[in-house]
């Protein structure tokens, strides 16, 4: 399919990552003929994971990207913890994908443009939002009220967890609802001891195993899709030949493909959504071929934007017409506003005494989670909302030799043995929705595909800084209560974007005057247009958001399919 033709699809899904894969699966399984558009190259599961299983001595520079290449192509992407020579092919080239940020307000836009998107490189932590989160905006007046409550999305969390495969433990915490879990990964001996101490000192601070999208006990459905249980390699961001972690390529796209209803076109950069003024509907999308720059249109009865928060927003801002001069479905003026990320960069580490005679085998695919414990039962006077911690215990390895004195035989022999037990964790805090944190199209600068680039203007404000301070204080107190010594805090506050949970720029809400999407992720202004990636988020909570994007997408797709059948679109 390389030029305009007369095919009218039931739905076009833009983007093949976390959200797009789900939209494709749910819509095709309901019998809709779907066109999935991906701006990047094709990636074939297993075949195109060139570094999967490669030891460092089989890599040209043992996993290091040449310095000049980093400087030339990856000055933003290099700031992501997972960027290396093993994974660079799953990160965009910054030179070809420019954006601007306001001087003094850096924003790290970490991206992967290829089939599967960032579902290949995500950290796989999977947490539900709770009633506390869906009520938050209404309670303290920041942002607008979510148009849904926990009970609206709970069955969809069930649905996506069951298919994706989330391992975790049942904890019965109101601020972090349990889900449909596969067996949890186990705690290390050290972590069990820490947990006991912490939870007896602070009953409201829990140290639980992370909930992660890894198969520990595959279902028949997962096995049928070619997925197998996790081998504890912890090399996930290279792609996993076992399909043990959830990605579009291991799970949703194979499911969509087997319906026979999916057409996938890669290297197709969506420029804009085409709006038909007569029917007041989206009629399709305008696409630019990534290589030839040839422009073409695709037509459909509905459009799902799942291109990622900022990319979907950019497409809508660039979809201008007489009816929508400031961007499609922007009658509220909220398109591009309320940009949020999670806030972090505060780390706490300490030494665990003892346990020298214990070790572990395997590289556990998740660390631990300390769920939010502030502003849960009692208000905290320091700040609104909350934060959690993620981290784990480890025995130091040879790397300790790079910051300690010593040479020769004794030094070498020390480094061959595991070092002392340490524990480290980092905070993930909630960012308030604020209309001043926003993006717009740069009027002067276009990218190589002729699309105006994004200008991002976003910064942390008082409540975010108060949370970061509290993370340091509470984090130290938490690790000391868990029995650690030499507890120290490092604070290297991350620029927005770097926690790679950017969201909020086409928010859901009850009121078309103050929000872009309704309770079904359906554009208030354009009934057959849906946005189901992070752009839809009305508040950020402090939990990793991907699971919520999955659930919102599946829920929206079910509603959209019903509306299409009933002739409402």
């Amino acid at each position, binding site marked *: 399919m390389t030029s305009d033709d007369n095919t009218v699809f039931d739905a076009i899904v833009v983007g093949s990552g976390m959200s797009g894969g789900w939209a494709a699966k749910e819509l095709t399984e309901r019998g809709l003929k779907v066109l999935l558009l991906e701006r990047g190259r094709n990636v074939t599961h297993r075949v195109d994971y060139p570094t999967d299983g490669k030891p460092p001595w089989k890599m040209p520079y043992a*996993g290091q990207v040449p310095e000049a290449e980093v400087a030339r192509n990856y000055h933003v992407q290099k700031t992501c913890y997972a960027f290396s020579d093993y994974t660079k092919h799953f990160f965009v080239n910054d030179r070809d994908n420019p954006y601007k940020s306001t001087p003094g307000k850096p924003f790290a836009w970490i991206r992967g443009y290829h089939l599967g998107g960032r579902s290949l490189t995500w950290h796989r932590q999977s947490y539900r939002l709770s009633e506390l989160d869906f009520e938050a905006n209404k309670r303290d007046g920041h942002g607008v009220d979510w148009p849904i409550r926990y009970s609206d999305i709970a069955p969809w969390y069930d649905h996506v967890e069951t298919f994706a495969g989330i391992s975790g433990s049942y904890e019965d915490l109101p601020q972090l609802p349990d889900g449909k879990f596969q067996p949890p990964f186990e705690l290390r001996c050290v972590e069990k001891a820490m947990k006991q101490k912490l939870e007896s000192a602070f009953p409201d601070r829990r140290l639980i195993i992370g909930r992660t999208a890894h198969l520990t006990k595959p279902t028949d459905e997962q096995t049928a899709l070619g997925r197998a249980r996790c081998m504890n390699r912890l090399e996930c961001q290279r792609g996993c030949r076992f399909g043990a972690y959830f990605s579009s390529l291991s799970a949703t796209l194979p499911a969509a493909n087997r319906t026979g209803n999916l057409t996938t076109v890669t290297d197709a950069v969506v420029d804009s959504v085409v709006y038909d003024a007569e029917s007041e509907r989206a009629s399709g999308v305008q696409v630019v071929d990534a290589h030839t720059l040839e422009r073409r249109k695709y037509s459909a009865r509905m459009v799902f934007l799942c291109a990622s928060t900022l990319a979907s927003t950019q497409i809508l801002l660039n979809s201008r017409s007489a009816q929508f001069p400031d961007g499609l479905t922007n009658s509220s003026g909220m398109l591009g506003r309320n940009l949020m990320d999670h806030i972090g960069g505060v780390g706490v580490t300490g030494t665990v005494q003892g346990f020298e005679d214990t*070790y572990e*085998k*395997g590289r556990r695919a998740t660390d631990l989670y300390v769920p939010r414990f502030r502003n849960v039962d009692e208000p905290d006077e320091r700040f609104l909302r909350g934060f959690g911690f993620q981290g784990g215990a480890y025995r130091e390895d040879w*790397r300790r030799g790079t910051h300690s*004195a010593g040479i*020769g035989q004794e*030094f*070498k022999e020390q*480094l061959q043995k595991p070092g002392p037990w340490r524990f480290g964790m980092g905070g993930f805090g909630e960012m308030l929705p604020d209309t001043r944190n926003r993006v717009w199209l740069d009027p002067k600068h276009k990218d190589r595909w002729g699309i105006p680039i994004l200008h991002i203007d976003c910064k942390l404000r008082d409540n975010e800084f108060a949370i970061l301070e509290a993370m340091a204080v509470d984090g130290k107190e938490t690790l000391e209560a868990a029995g650690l010594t030499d507890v120290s805090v490092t604070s290297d506050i991350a620029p927005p974007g770097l926690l790679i949970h950017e969201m909020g720029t086409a928010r859901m809400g009850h009121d078309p005057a103050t929000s872009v999407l309704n309770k079904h992720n359906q554009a208030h202004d354009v009934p057959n247009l849906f946005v189901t990636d992070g752009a839809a988020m009305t508040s950020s909570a402090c939990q990793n958001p991907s699971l919520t994007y999955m659930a919102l997408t599946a829920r929206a797709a079910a509603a959209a399919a019903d509306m299409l059948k009933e002739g409402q679109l």
Partner: protein
Amino acid sequence: MTRRAAIRNAVLLLGGAIPAAQLGLLESALAATGVESKPRFLDPDQFAMLERVADLIIPETDTPGAVSAGVHRFIDMLLAEWASPETQEQFIAQLSSIDERATELGMSGFLDGSEDGQVEVVRLLDEEAFADGAPATFFRRLKKLVLFAYFSSEPGATQALRFDPFPGDYQPCLPLGDDDRAFFWLGYSYDL
């Protein structure tokens, strides 16, 4: 021992005698297999100094040392292919600080020093580099390069450490014996 001397010794051990011209051929043949090759970035003296320092940091024990793991060759290759021009210049400029330190200790140069003298130089550089509040020194960077190159090499990861590419089950609380080695793990990314 120079490469040529090593080859001559090997040949003698095998009971042979070999003319000098053929030693050259043997050397080229070895180089072509990648077993041994001339430095690509450093000059022969710099390369020899790097080899010697790496050997002193990670000597041969019951497991391979830095030299038999090819750490000096790997670092020379990194400098040739991976390093930016700035890193290359800095490395060359700062490598001479090792010679300067040797001169201060009364040697005519690091490579000309006795084994004890060389150990003394490297120990001194190491102590300075890791003293409390010490600024980031060249030796610190060099030592990091050596450790990274060694432990991410096949001998380093699989013999000095334990290498476990497909763990399978996760065992969270394994008893550790006195002689048990650590498992190799590179992390997500490693900032050299």
